[in-house]
């Protein structure tokens, strides 16, 4: 009986030999037969010890019921078959006639089968009495429905033994009470013992001592409480009957279902034992009546105690599950460098997983509260972070912020915090729950990516200038030519004497002007060439466009492209890095120029316009009349390495888009209705 069917099935499957399964079943059947016989013997023994009572329950039925409950229905016939010889052997001792013996066996089997069948259908399975549902199902079936039904047959055993048919109701009641009591007192403790046999050795010693102590105290209490001679005479019976109650509750609270079923067994045992020793608590008159009273008392006691035990077991299990889940989540969170926390809005309590200590560089053992964590934030980030937390908690609003935190070593690392309000049943926020995550590696990767983007932007700028070198060189050649020719003219005039002084003065003026002109070109080029930090400043977009077009002047002439200027007057300044914005402009202009390579020179026109957006930002449009964007690929142009040019890298527009994103702006390209394409880029207002 100690081998549960599923285990046996698993073992059978593992060994690959089904007959071994049957060998174990057979062994269990023999054990059931022996226990069945022993149970009957004990019941008979109780009956012989006193003339006032007999056994208040029939142990063989309990044995058979437990055996059937623990095994699959297809094996039941074997256990019933095994129990039959034991039944015959036991009943023949008291000289039971054959018919009565057979009817008794049939009804005994029927109650066990109905019990086991219904309970298995109601999914009454281990852990036994682990929930109120299970305990209720058990009490309902094993203590009421099943014995009440089978008692209709069981009553005939007495009649066949010579009882009058007029007493059928009495016999029914007795048979019912006996079987219900057996299911309530012996079966639960037996089932729990079988279930926990394997794990008993894992129980801590202290707990084992406590269990034994509870049992002993209960036994002693019951011993004094359950005696008829003093109590009835003194009228203390009801009061004394409640004496074991605190101990029952203690056992149920501390040991759950096992404690509850244990105390039921102990009380039953003490009550029977005391009665056998002549202290008959329920002395109604004849033995049958005494036992019936005792049965009713024990049934009434057992039902609520069993349910109490189950209720406590369920709560404790739920607690364990919650605690384990919390531990699992904390572990998982810590493994992925995340610390969890919750801030109770009403009680202002703070709970956080242990990993938060690690994240915020606090030694273990330090009690955690929100202020202590926030105080570890880098002084520069603290005001913002503190205000964000305060505002989120006050308004019960979602929070998302990143800040640096003083680590346990001297360095700072990045932590990202997210939180959201938890709402109670009434719809009001009850708590803020959130997570702290180590964002250092992400921040470093972002910085790295920023640096690479910066690097690529610079390379693109330089390579674009390389492509434009012819036109740019011309921009320098012009002033240099003017300077050289002026200087040479000056030399000739000087050789001619003083009469040319006025013209020489003009020559110097021109040389100065042209030198400045060359200097400006170089200055603009150097700005584009160098790899400086991004510097945001007020930028006059119209002036930036004009300066870019000056740089492209020769290139535009060389490509026979006309610029149509539709710049808005009184354009407000934009906030941005002039070099990076000029790179975007240059790139867009070069794209527009390239797009018109196949267009007749007379029609090569680029229209550039500026405008103020509704939000107060700046909108720049550069429109060509070239071939336009390839159909259905208007979005692909922003993908890296996408290019329509023969020698293009496909990085220009992605870089421009990333520059615009950095400025909080947007860049888009669209085909014009008639011909060509328009690049639109927008910058937000400076204060946005």
């Amino acid at each position, binding site marked *: 009986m100690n081998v549960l069917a599923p285990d046996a099935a698993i073992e059978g499957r593992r060994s690959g030999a089904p007959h071994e399964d049957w060998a174990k079943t057979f062994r269990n059947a023999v054990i059931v037969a022996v226990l069945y016989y022993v149970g009957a013997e004990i019941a008979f023994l109780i009956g012989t010890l006193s003339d006032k009572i007999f056994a208040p329950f029939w142990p063989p039925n309990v044995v058979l019921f437990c055996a059937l409950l623990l095994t699959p229905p297809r094996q039941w016939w074997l256990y019933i078959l095994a129990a039959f010889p034991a039944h015959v052997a036991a009943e023949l001792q008291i000289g039971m006639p054959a018919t009565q013996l057979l009817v008794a066996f049939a009804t005994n089997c029927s109650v066990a089968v109905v019990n086991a069948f219904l309970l298995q259908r109601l999914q009454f399975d281990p852990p036994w009495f682990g929930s109120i549902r299970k305990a209720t199902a058990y009490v309902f079936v094993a203590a009421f429905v099943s014995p009440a039904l089978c008692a209709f047959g069981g009553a005939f055993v007495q009649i066949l033994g010579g009882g009058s048919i007029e007493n059928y109701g009495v016999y029914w009641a007795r048979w019912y009470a006996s079987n219900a009591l057996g299911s309530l007192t012996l079966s639960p403790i037996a089932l729990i013992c079988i279930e926990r046999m394997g794990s008993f050795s894992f129980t801590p010693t202290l707990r084992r001592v406590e269990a034994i102590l509870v049992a002993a105290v209960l036994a002693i209490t019951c011993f004094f409480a359950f005696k008829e001679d003093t109590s009835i005479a003194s009228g203390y019976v009801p009061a004394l009957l409640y004496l074991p109650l605190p101990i029952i509750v203690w056992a149920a609270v501390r040991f759950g279902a096992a404690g509850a079923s244990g105390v039921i067994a102990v009380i039953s045992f003490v009550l029977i034992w005391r009665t056998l020793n002549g202290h008959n608590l329920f002395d109604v008159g004849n033995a049958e009546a005494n036992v019936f009273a005792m049965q009713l008392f024990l049934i009434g006691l057992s039902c609520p105690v069993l349910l109490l035990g189950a209720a406590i077991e369920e709560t404790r299990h739920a607690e364990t599950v919650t605690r384990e889940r919390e531990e699992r989540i904390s572990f998982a969170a810590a493994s992925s460098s995340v610390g969890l926390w919750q801030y109770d809005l009403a009680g202002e309590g703070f709970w956080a997983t242990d990993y938060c200590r690690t994240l915020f560089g606090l030694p273990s053992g330090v009690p955690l509260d929100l202020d202590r964590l926030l105080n570890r934030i880098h002084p520069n980030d603290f005001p913002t972070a503190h205000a964000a937390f305060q505002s989120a908690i006050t308004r019960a609003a979602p929070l998302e912020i990143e800040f640096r935190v003083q680590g346990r070593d001297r360095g700072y690392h990045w932590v990202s915090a997210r939180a959201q309000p938890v709402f109670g049943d009434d719809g009001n926020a009850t708590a803020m729950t959130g997570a702290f995550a180590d964002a250092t590696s992400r921040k470093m990767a972002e910085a790295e990516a920023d640096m690479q983007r910066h690097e690529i932007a610079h390379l693109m700028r330089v390579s674009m200038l390389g492509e434009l070198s012819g036109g740019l060189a011309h921009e320098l*050649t012009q002033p240099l030519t003017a300077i050289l020719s002026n200087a040479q003219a000056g030399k000739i005039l000087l050789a001619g004497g003083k009469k040319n002084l006025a013209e020489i003065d003009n020559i110097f003026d021109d040389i100065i002007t*042209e030198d400045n002109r060359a200097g400006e070109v170089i200055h603009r080029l150097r700005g584009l060439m160098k790899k400086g930090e991004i510097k945001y400043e007020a930028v006059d977009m119209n002036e930036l466009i004009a300066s870019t077009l000056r740089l492209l002047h020769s290139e535009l002439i060389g490509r026979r492209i006309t610029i149509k200027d539709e710049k808005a007057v009184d354009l407000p300044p934009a906030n941005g890095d002039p070099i990076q914005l000029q790179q975007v402009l240059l790139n867009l202009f070069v794209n527009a120029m390239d797009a018109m390579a196949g267009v007749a020179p007379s029609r090569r026109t680029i229209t550039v316009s500026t405008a103020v957006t509704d939000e107060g930002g700046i909108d720049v449009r550069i429109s060509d009349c070239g071939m336009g964007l390839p159909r259905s690929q208007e979005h692909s142009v922003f993908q890296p390495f996408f290019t329509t040019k023969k020698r293009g890298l496909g990085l220009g527009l992605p870089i421009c888009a990333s520059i615009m994103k950095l400025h909080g702006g947007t860049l888009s390209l669209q085909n014009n209705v008639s011909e060509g394409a328009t690049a639109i880029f927008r910058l937000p207002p400076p204060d946005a």
Partner: protein
Amino acid sequence: MREAGFTTFLVDDDPAVLRSITRLLNAAGFKTKSFSSPQEFLSSHDPAVPGCAIIDLVMSELDGLHLQQALIDTGSDRPIIFLTGKGDISASVKAMKAGAVDFLTKPVQREALFSAVKRAANVDAVSRQRRNESKSIGERISTLTHREREVLEYVIAGRLNKQIAASLGTVEKTVKVHRGRMMAKLGVRTVADLVRLADKAGIAPAHSMVG
């Protein structure tokens, strides 16, 4: 060697460059006339004025090569010097094929500029002289009668008067008269001069009928 009135026409849409080169040429004693727009230059162009043109290759309105072509289309063979900011081989080949005198890269050294202008002046003078000469020869030839013209073609073919007379179906004396008048009208004394003049005027000798 410079002709009086030889003018250097400067065309560049960059005012600073235009002014400086004008100034340099003026300082060296060249007569100049500058234009900041190719259209302006074209519309006021007078081929009769001796001179050369210095043209910027890259201009926004009309680039140098197109301006050169436009000049040729008007029948002008004014020598052209191109100025360019960058060494553009294909443009320079095109320019030289179309008769450009030189192709100078900016910033231009004065010696190179001056020598180019001088060469252009020579080219201009020679072509102008040749044009004048062929113009006067043409005028003189046009005064010849049909018969005199026939006699001319036979004479430069090396025929004797007798042979000419036979070919024309006339007598030797008549041929002598025609020949004398023809030589007088053309202003030549010797057959050698006549042959040179006929060659300049592009007149082919008569086909020999006699072996």
